[in-house]
Each structure stands twice: as structure tokens, then as C-alpha cells.
């Protein structure tokens, strides 16, 4: 069967076209060939802003052709396997193994098995140690590289931090490697390790004590340790694509996106993004307005997303919205402001930008002031009430509230207070507007590397289930819907996020057992992972249910972010002092 015939038989073949408006097609002669691989479906991957930045940044270079590859749907995978055809890039339908550089984006721990799947389908040896002179150089970037160890055996290098500058240095190094007759991969690895922000796993070998903890690292003499995070200093001069790809099919974030700022002004102790994207760097309002207009003009998108970790903390927000308003209303373009803080300023901004027909989402995270202070969520009950009051006055129809259970220092009272807070907020809202509809999302807290809670034990699976059920049953009696991530997913996210190199074996077994696209509830199977844990000899309790000592050698100790170990520990102590 040819690829064309296969596409006749799969669902949503529009995922695999690769000739979208503003996609890059070049004459392959003399080009350095790179592919950015995203271990999830097109609908997710094509929405990712980081991918878009790197893709267009590389293609700006005349002698580089960068293409894209996404996870195949289960039906395409089956057809590829039975026909023996390799997984291909979208633009030129080139097998992944024929690229010089393959770069994966690691956004979510549960996508890791799909990385192995794409490597295998692309006919690339899975492990760095198995790759020879002709095989591509396989690298990764994205927020999950905050702990590079669980996927260490599969990558020649992992990049830590902002990629838009480092990616060109990585290409240059790979180009030199490909040009040499010897193509010695050890030489390549040493050269890659000299690029600031690049972690080369083969140069660092963890040694384990009998307890299973890391006792020490065997570090190559020529390699840096720890690897410092790479940061772009100034967003105004940093590259940002004004001609992004316009997808042919509907994707999850089907809109123009402009990044307002990187980093966060808040210091929520549970939030990995808040720590790993430090320091915060603002794009100027003039530049935001300019980029928004250019992108809208070049794509025809009907919606603009102004994105950041906490949009209403952007000092120029009003200026941007006012500056864009005439253009947006003339062109009938909607604005979306994700990541709003639950205060009245945010509600005002949301209404100004979007009108009141959207869902407002707020994240109080915890039910009591005491617990919000522990986790560093700087938000008072009064502020939340004011926000809800205003939302109801403005006739917003839907407000969604995010909470976490299983937080450090959480007591039963905190759960009861989630319930009574939501009921109070609902009463306030209903007393003002009949239209307003409150819903709740309640998910498990997962301790993440590079945060003050990285030493914490995670709450046990059955407790997490009980806690969510408690909140849910109480609120659903009142007619308030409660959703949230399945606890088993949080459990696995917890195992992998703080995993060491041994977790690579678990990922591999899970993939072999058929784990794919686990972020999609139709595909996720917990038994597949349980089986994989016993096959790989992984005890989840070791990774989840154990409070780490201050002097424990953590698997991610080879990377150094702006917030260092000492600072994180102090933050943790501050959290518990109250």
C-alpha cells in the first residue's frame, strides 16, 4: 500500500497533509535537514507555540530546512506497521531516519512512550548507545527537560531552557559532525555539551546506593556540571514568527498567539513553570500589538490569544487591548486571555477584551487561606468573592474554578473548605445573576522538580481518589459539576516527573505494552502501566511516597535553574513556617 492509499483509510487524514498555509517547503539540495517531532496528535502539537517559534526560526536560515512530524493516530500507526512504511515528516514525507537532526518537544510526562514509538516507526535506534554514524542526532527540549534523567538513554542531548538561540548552535554542531569523515559520536557529544544549556546524558552516569537512591555521578572530565539553564535576555529582540502555519484542520488552540511575557511574577510553590521560566521577561506592548496585527493579517485567524503564565500581571495589558481594539473590531477578531488571576481586575480585563460570553477560569487552588499561604498562592477569599461578584454583575455565563487536592500540609478541613467556599461563591453569583453557571475542576497535586515541593511525598492514590470524591459528591448534590484529571494519570505523572534514569526502563516497557497517547482518555490504560512497572522492576512508592532529605542527590541535580537548591529549600521552610 502507498501512503496515499493509507490516508484514504485513516480517520482525519487532514492531520498528515503538511502543506498548510505558511508551512515551509524548500528544495532539499544542499539543505541541512531537521525535523521537529511532537509526541502527540497534530491537533495538540500544532497548537504549541514553542514548536512554532523553533520551526520558523530554523527555516529563516537559507541553508536549513526544518520540517514537522507528529504522533500518528492509532489507525495510521497500524497501517504503517503492516505496510512497513516508516513514519514521515509532514512537509516532504521523508522518513525520520533520513534527517540529520530530530528534535522532540517534551511537554507532558505521559507522552514519553510516544517518543519511543515515533523513533521506532521512524526507523531510528531507540537508545543513544545504539546509534551509528548514519543515524540522526536525536535531541529534546521543552519544560519536561527540567528533569532530563527519565528519558536520558534515548537522547543524544537535552536542552534546558529557552531554545530559540541554542537551536542554531545545536544545528551548527550537528552540521560539523555530519561533515566529518569519522562521525565519532563521542566527539559529537562533547561538542554538544559545550553549548550552554545542553545536557548530554552519556557524559553523566548516575551511581546508585543499595537503597536505590543516587549516591554519586560519574562525570566526564570535559563536561560541564551542573548545566546552566539557557535564557533569552530580551523578548523584544528575540525571534517570534509573524508568519505562523495556519492549520488545515481544527486544532485545540486554533488561534493566533502572541506571548506577552515569559516567566511569572507570582511565586506559587507548586508551579513548575513559575520556577523554570525565571526570570520574568516582558515583551513591550508596542511589539505585542505589532506582532498580533501581522499574524492576524498573515493567517486570517478569527481569534487572538495573548498568552503568558499569568496574563493580568502584564503591565501593558490595557495598553495592548486598547491599542488593538479598533483593528480587532473592524476585522471581527475575538481575543482570549488565558491564565487569569481570580481578582476583579482580571474580570474587567476579560470583559474588555472578550465580552462576557466566554468561560472565566480561576484557580484558587486551595480551600483555606492557611493552605493557600503554604503553597504560595497569593489570593484572599475576599479577592475571589469580589471577582465572582463582578463576573456575575457583568453577566458572564460560565465560571470555572480550579482546585488541587493532596497538597502538602492539607487537612480534612481544607477539603471541607473547598466545598463551602464553592457553595458561598455560588450563592454570591446566583444572588446577582441567574445566568451564571459555576463549575469546578479538582485534580491531584503532583510534586515537580525545580520547585520548593520537589522533596515532598505525594499523596497516595486511594487518598487522592477519596478526596476528590468527597468534594465531588458534596458539590454535585448542589448541582455543581466537578471534573479534573484522572488520579491514575497524576500518579504516573508523579512517578515519571521525579524519576531517575531507571524510569527509562518503565517508559520502554509501557510503550512495548502498547501505551500510546495517554493524555487522551480514550486511549489511556492504567493496567498497561502497572504491568510495565513490574516488568521494569519499578516500585512507584519509592518515587512518590517518600519525603526526600535535604542532602539527597536528586536525579535532576545536573541542571541548574535561576532558583537554586538553597533558595528552593528556604522557600520550602518558609512554606511550613506559615
Amino acid at each position, binding site marked *: 500500500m502507498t501512503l496515499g492509499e493509507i490516508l484514504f483509510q485513516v480517520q482525519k487524514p487532514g492531520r498528515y497533509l503538511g502543506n498548510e498555509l505558511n508551512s515551509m517547503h524548500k528544495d532539499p539540495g544542499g539543505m541541512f535537514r531537521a525535523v521537529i517531532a511532537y509526541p502527540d496528535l497534530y491537533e495538540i502539537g500544532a497548537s504549541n507555540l514553542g514548536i512554532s517559534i523553533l520551526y520558523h526560526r530554523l527555516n529563516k536560515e537559507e541553508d536549513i530546512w526544518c520540517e514537522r512530524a507528529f504522533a500518528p493516530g492509532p489507525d495510521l500507526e497500524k497501517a504503517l506497521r503492516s505496510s512497513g512504511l516508516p513514519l514521515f515528516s509532514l512537509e516532504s514525507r521523508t522518513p525520520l531516519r533520513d534527517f540529520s537532526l530530530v528534535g522532540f518537544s517534551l511537554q507532558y510526562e505521559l507522552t514519553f512512550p510516544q517518543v519511543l514509538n515515533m523513533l521506532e516507526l521512524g526507523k531510528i535506534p531507540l537508545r543513544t548507545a545504539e546509534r551509528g554514524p548514519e543515524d540522526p542526532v536525536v535531541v529534546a527540549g521543552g519544560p519536561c527537560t527540567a528533569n532530563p534523567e527519565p528519558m536520558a538513554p534515548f537522547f543524544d542531548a537535552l536542552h534546558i531552557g529557552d531554545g530559540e538561540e541554542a537551536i542554531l548552535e545545536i544545528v551548527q554542531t550537528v552540521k560539523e559532525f555530519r561533515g566529518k569523515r569519522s562521525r565519532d559520536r563521542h566527539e559529537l557529544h562533547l561538542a554538544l555539551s559545550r553549548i550552554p544549556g545542553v545536557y548530554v546524558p552519556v557524559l553523566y552516569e548516575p551511581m546508585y546506593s543499595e537503597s536505590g537512591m543516587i549516591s554519586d555521578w560519574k562525570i566526564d572530565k570535559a563536561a560541564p556540571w551542573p548545566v546552566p539553564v539557557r535564557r533569552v535576555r530580551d523578548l523584544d529582540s528575540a525571534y517570534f514568527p509573524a508568519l505562523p502555519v495556519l492549520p488545515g484542520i481544527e486544532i485545540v488552540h486554533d488561534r493566533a498567539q502572541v506571548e506577552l511575557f515569559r516567566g511569572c511574577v507570582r511565586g506559587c510553590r507548586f508551579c513548575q513553570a513559575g520556577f523554570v521560566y525565571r526570570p520574568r521577561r516582558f515583551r513591550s506592548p508596542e511589539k505585542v500589538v505589532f506582532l498580533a496585527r501581522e499574524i492576524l*493579517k498573515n493567517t486570517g485567524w478569527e481569534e487572538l490569544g495573548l498568552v503568558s503564565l499569568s496574563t493580568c500581571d502584564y503591565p501593558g495589558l490595557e495598553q495592548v487591548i486598547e491599542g488593538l481594539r479598533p483593528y480587532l473590531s473592524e476585522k*471581527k477578531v475575538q481575543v482570549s486571555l488565558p491564565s487569569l488571576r481570580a481578582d476583579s481586575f482580571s474580570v474587567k480585563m476579560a470583559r474588555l477584551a472578550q465580552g462576557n460570553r466566554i468561560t472565566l477560569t480561576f484557580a484558587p487552588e486551595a480551600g483555606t487561606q492557611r493552605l493557600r499561604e503554604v503553597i504560595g498562592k497569593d489570593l484572599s477569599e475576599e479577592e475571589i468573592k469580589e471577582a465572582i461578584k463582578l463576573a456575575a454583575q457583568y453577566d458572564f455565563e460560565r465560571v470555572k474554578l480550579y482546585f488541587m487536592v493532596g497538597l502538602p500540609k492539607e487537612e480534612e478541613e481544607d477539603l471541607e473548605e473547598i466545598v463551602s467556599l464553592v457553595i458561598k461563591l455560588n450563592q454570591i453569583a446566583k444572588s446577582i445573576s441567574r445566568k451564571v453557571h459555576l463549575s469546578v475542576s479538582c485534580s491531584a497535586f503532583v510534586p515537580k522538580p525545580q520547585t520548593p515541593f520537589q522533596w515532598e511525598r505525594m499523596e497516595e492514590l486511594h487518598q487522592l481518589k477519596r478526596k476528590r470524591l468527597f468534594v465531588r459528591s458534596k458539590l454535585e448534590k448542589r448541582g455543581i459539576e466537578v471534573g479534573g484529571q484522572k488520579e491514575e494519570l497524576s500518579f504516573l505523572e508523579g512517578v515519571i516527573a521525579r524519576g531517575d534514569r531507571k524510569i527509562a526502563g518503565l517508559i520502554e516497557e509501557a510503550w512495548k505494552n502498547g501505551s500510546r497517547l495517554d493524555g487522551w482518555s480514550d486511549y489511556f490504560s492504567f493496567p498497561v502501566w502497572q504491568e510495565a512497572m513490574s516488568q521494569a522492576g519499578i516500585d512507584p512508592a519509592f518515587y512518590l511516597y517518600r519525603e526526600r532529605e535535604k542532602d539527597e542527590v536528586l536525579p535532576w541535580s545536573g541542571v541548574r535553574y535561576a532558583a537554586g537548591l538553597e533558595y528552593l529549600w528556604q522557600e520550602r521552610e518558609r512554606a511550613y513556617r506559615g
Partner: protein
Amino acid sequence: MVKRIRIAYSKGQEIAFLSHLDVIRAFSRLLRRAEIPVQYSQGFHTRPLISMGPALPVGASGEEELLDIFLEREPDFDLLERLKAHAPPGIKIREVKGLREKKKALTAFPFLSLWHLEGTWEVIPEEGFLKALLEREEISVLRSTPKAVRQIDLKKYLKALRAGEEYLEIELYSSPEGGARLEEVLRLLREEGYNFRLKAILRKKLRILE
């Protein structure tokens, strides 16, 4: 003054796998990029008003597809050139013409479609067989919907069938009340012993029957 404009365009093989809805979205964005003064729908998620001709199935390309848009004012530029310049890969704008405003949507007309299917035959059906098939009193096939399976008669839809080395041509009538599906015609032939392995679908002609 609202002016109705009929656009003839082709959906190329390279985007055959986009759905009807994808094509509508592509046009809505093309109209924004090209800054065409079109009428927008009312409501929150406002969209350009587009009246599409009969849908192409996923996997099909079309040589002369149709859609109507409604202008808010007389454009002070060459509409055809502007649309051509902003068309995305796979869509070619062939022709535009102004129409007197009419309420009737494009889908409210009966159409005649000429389908050219590429593929391979195990046995090519002979002309005589196809002629006899079309002359039957009733040409019934089963149609399954999510709710039920029912028998339908293709006789009133099927105008002509021509088969040759690596192709099958089908002329089909359709109307707002219904039509035949290509897969039903293929199934009919398969049940008669003529299996066609489909490789590409092209609607060569689309004619409005007024």
C-alpha cells in the same frame, strides 16, 4: 446594498483529505486575509456568511466547486485577483461573478455532478452491463444510518456510468432532499461482481440545475 458573489474554485488533490468544514474554514480565513468586505453572521462567534455548494467527501478533490459570499459594499479592487493572491495551497480561484441577491442558499438547488474515480478493476464492467443496470426498474442498495438500515433506490440519482482501464465515471443528480453516495454506487457494482479499488476521487463538473 448587499451583493451576492458566486465563486468558482477548485479543491486540489493535495488537499483532498480536508473535510467540507475545513474548506469552509479555509475560505473564511482567506476572506479575512484578503480583506474582502463581506457580511458577517450575527452573534458572538461571528463568521463571514458563506453559502457552500454540495459538499465534497473527505478524500475528494473538485475542479469546479461553488460557493457564494455576500459583500457589504462594491469592492474598489479587482475581486478575482485579490482572492487569487490570498488563496491557500490547494485552492485555486477560477471565476467570480455577481448575482442578483436571492434568499435561496446554494444548497437549495438540484445539482448534477460528474465524478471521475481513479483506481483499479479486478474485472472492468462492460458497457452493455452498465447500460442494463441503469435501465433497471429499480436500483436498490442498503443505506445504514446510526439509527436504522433502509433500502433506497438509486434510480432517480444515477444518470450515467462509464468504466475503463483504471477509472470509473459516475454522473449523479442530487437535490436538497437527497442523493446517492459514491460508496453506494461502488457497493452496487461490487455486489454485481465488479470490485473497484479506489485511489482518488475527483468531481470534474458540478452543474446547477435551475
